[in-house]
């Protein structure tokens, strides 16, 4: 599994209006410009695609930052 910083870069790359380097592990992903339910779908699909890990709506609700997302992926991968 890639490290946390690399994860942040990959995620950053998935959104149009996010400049490279503007997100940090402790950034709240809901504060990404123009965040919407579509972005939530994108996050779920991106993670499914990249890591073969399927997050539920509940998983998303329990997370705030990008580091939280990373942690939950790791937890699921280690199961």
């Amino acid at each position, binding site marked *: 599994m890639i490290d946390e910083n690399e994860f942040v870069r990959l995620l950053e790359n998935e959104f149009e209006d996010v400049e490279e380097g503007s997100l940090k592990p402790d950034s709240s992903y809901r504060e990404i410009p123009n965040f919407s*339910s*579509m972005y*939530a*779908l*994108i996050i779920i*699909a*991106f993670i*499914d*695609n990249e890591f073969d890990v399927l997050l*539920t*709506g*509940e998983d998303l609700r329990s997370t705030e930052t990008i580091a939280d997302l990373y942690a939950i992926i790791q937890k699921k991968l280690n199961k």
Partner: protein
Amino acid sequence: MKTPFHLNEKTILVTGATSGIGFQVVKSIVEMGAKVVISGRNERKLNNVKKQFGDAVIQLLAHDLTDEKEIESLASLSVNLNGVVHCAGIVNPYPIRYLNFKKLDETMRLNYYSAVVLIGQLDRKKKLEKGTSIVFISSISAQHPHKGGATYSSSKAALESFSKVVAMEYSHRRIRSNVVSPAMVKTPLYEKAAEDASHESMQAHVDKYPLGIGDPEDVANAIIYLLSDASRWVTGTKIVLDGGCLLGY
């Protein structure tokens, strides 16, 4: 008056019978006098349904409908039918950007391919009696899609077209095929969608329904009509059940 609004002496296959709309269809058509063949993946859940409806459930067919071979064996095992209600279906919202054949297949196999192969196999194995009524469950999202609906909306649009082809190909045996197209209905599938969506976006959606969102019974009632001889001149068509939510569109 002798009413045609009953299902006495009819044997009807219900797929997706263990949950939501399919489960309610079993309940409603048993009340209307039908015998039912129930299908789902899970034997234990099927046995639970059987327990509730007793002798009216004459056959349990535990098969995964995403698998062609399993559909074939379901069709082989099934008794002869006067009606089919294909309720099994899934919702899997996904942005176009990440879709690939594998991901498309997950939804298309159950929501569309299974319908085609199920009818084909039931026909080849001579399980569809003259005058059989077939009902598919589409969704208003076939015409009114939502973001992330590339798989679901498309699968239902395909299903609606398929139903018309069935209506044409089988009319010489007076076999009819129709679609019901519900908007949001309170089922476990809905609960899952509600859980995935944010609370506000869900509430905003529910607010658009002049008659509120639907109960599985509201869908089952229309299906009873389509299965009964009361609808014997109705084929290749669609009944929209939406609590008025499309009125404003």
